[in-house]
C-alpha cells in the first residue's frame, strides 16, 4: 500500500487498538508528558494514551505542544514564571 493510501485508511479506520477517550487523555496528559520528559515509559504508565494520540489529531497536537513547552526555561525577560513567593 502506498504512503498516501496508508494515511487515508489510517484516518478512516484508526489503529484499532485500545485507546483512551479525549477526556481521559486530557486528564492524564500532564503526567504522560512528565514521564516522557523524565525518560520513563509513559505508554506503560498510562495504557491507551499512545493509541488515542495515534487516532486523534487534536489531542496529538496538544500532546506535542505540551511536550515541547513543559520544560521551557522557568523565567524569561519580563516574566517571572517561578512559583509564587
Amino acid at each position: 500500500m502506498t504512503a498516501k493510501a496508508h494515511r487515508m485508511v489510517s484516518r478512516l479506520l484508526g489503529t484499532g487498538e485500545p485507546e483512551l477517550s479525549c477526556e481521559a487523555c486530557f486528564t492524564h496528559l500532564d503526567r504522560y508528558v512528565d514521564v516522557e520528559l523524565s525518560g520513563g515509559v509513559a505508554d506503560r504508565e498510562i495504557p491507551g494514551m499512545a493509541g488515542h494520540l495515534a487516532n486523534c489529531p487534536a489531542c496529538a497536537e496538544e500532546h506535542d505542544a505540551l511536550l515541547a513547552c513543559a520544560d521551557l526555561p522557568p523565567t524569561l525577560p519580563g516574566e517571572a514564571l517561578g512559583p509564587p513567593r
Partner: protein
Amino acid sequence: MTKPRTVAATEPVVLDARSDAWLAALRDTGAGKDEAVGQLHAMMLRVARWQVQRLRHTVGRIDADELDVLAQQAADDATIAVLGHLDDFAGRSRFTTWAFKFAVLQASVTLRRYRWRDREIPTEPQDWPYQADPGAGPDQQVAADDLAAALRAAIATALTPHQRDVLVALAINDVPIDVLAERLGTSRGALYKTLHDARIRLRTRLTDEGYEPPPSRRETAR
C-alpha cells in the same frame, strides 16, 4: 521545616516544592492570592502566545495584534480553568505541566475556531480516499482502488447517518473536532465516541468482506 503536603489521589502523592508553593499561593485567602493569580495568568499568557505562534501557519493571513488578542483570550480562559480545577490537581505531574495543558488546549481550540470562523462545515466528502497516487505501481494502485471501493461502500451502508456525517467531517474533510463539536452543540468527547464507533463498524465490515485493515501509523495533527 514544613512537611510537604499531599493531595487526594488513589495513592498518596508528595508534591515537589515548586508545585507545593503554587498550590499554597493559589489557595491563599489573603493578599498573596492576587499576586499568585497574576503570576498564573502571566504563565498562561506566555504558553498561549507560544502555542498560537506555533499554529499561526494554520490560519492564513493574520496580523500580530489580532493573533495576540487570541492568545490573551486563551490565557484568560486557561486561567479561569486552572483556578476552577485546582482541586483536581492530583500531584502526579509538576504543577506547571498540569497548568500548561490548559493554556495549550485553550490556545489550540481558539486557533482552530478562528480558522473555521467563516466557513461552512462540508457535509459531503471533499476528497475520497485513494485518489490516484502518481508514485504507486500498478499492483499497488489496483489494491488501493479495490480497498477504496470497499471503504466507500462500507461508509455508505454500515454506518448510521450521524456516524457517517461525523466520520466524513473529521476523517475526510479535516474539520477539527472542536469546531464540529461547537457547531453541533455537543462535546469533543461525544464526537470522538461516535468516530470511534464508526471506525469499529468499518473495520468489522471490511474484515467480514475479507480485507485486512493495516495497522496505522501516527498521523500528524491538522
